[in-house]
């Protein structure tokens, strides 16, 4: 079964908007409902849309291979933990909000009480939001891709024993009947 041209074109046109909307949710996590997880999930739906429109194999050839999503995910987590460890260096407290109210990046002072909201506030919270957004996007896309890939390619039986393959004794597989 092939998927028609209309679906493919519509999907391709929609995906950038989905990505931008997801980015907006991630970036405004400290002001409006949303945040890294929700935004990352929205971005991952864009990837899911591509997967639905195109065959997963085509996706991996045309767009990016699945292992790079794992690297994206690792990168997000490393950004998170490095931000946390930077708190350890700057203020001697793990996960300390060392950017808040410093005047630097995301360091504007907040108007207390009810206010319209300023994007450049909240210190490390937006940074962590971005880290989590990247991580969730990578994680959900990778899970989807792996599940698609795992549907067809059967895993072979050769990995059944607990020992290196060449050490299996006289072709005996071990294991139970």
């Amino acid at each position, binding site marked *: 079964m092939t998927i028609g041209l209309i679906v493919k074109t519509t999907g391709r046109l929609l995906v950038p908007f989905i990505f931008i909307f997801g980015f907006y949710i991630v970036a405004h*996590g400290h002001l409006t409902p949303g945040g890294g997880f929700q935004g990352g999930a929205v971005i991952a739906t864009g990837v899911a849309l591509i997967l639905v429109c195109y065959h997963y194999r085509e996706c991996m050839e045309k767009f990016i291979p699945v292992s790079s999503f794992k690297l994206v995910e690792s990168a997000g987590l490393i950004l998170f933990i490095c931000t946390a460890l930077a708190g350890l260096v700057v203020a001697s407290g793990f996960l300390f909000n060392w950017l808040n109210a410093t005047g630097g990046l995301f360091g504007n002072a*907040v108007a207390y009480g009810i*206010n319209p909201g300023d994007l450049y506030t909240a210190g490390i919270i937006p940074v962590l939001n971005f880290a989590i957004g990247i991580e969730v996007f990578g994680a959900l896309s990778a899970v989807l891709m792996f599940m698609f890939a795992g549907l067809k390619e059967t895993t072979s039986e050769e990995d059944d024993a607990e020992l290196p393959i060449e050490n299996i004794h006289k072709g005996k597989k071990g294991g139970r009947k």
Partner: protein
Amino acid sequence: MKEAGSIFQPKVAIVLIVLVTLIFLLPAFGLTFGAPAATMTDQYYIDNSQTETGANNVVTAVVFDFRGFDTLGEATVLFIAVLGVAMIFRRNHK
């Protein structure tokens, strides 16, 4: 699973399920909806999230600042799921 089918006969399982449901009904008598019994920690978060973290969204302030360590753990759980999936669907040959 095995434990589902054969440890419990269906009748025993139904009795068990009804019993457990009744136990879970008890909180409905002990708690009141709409009026939490104590609010000291949450009121502190609402009052101080802007001064301490600079975030307008109190939930985000709780998730990423006051309880940021939980978020690290939760991201780790997602990471584990991806690693597990990748490991289960790995190729055998190098």
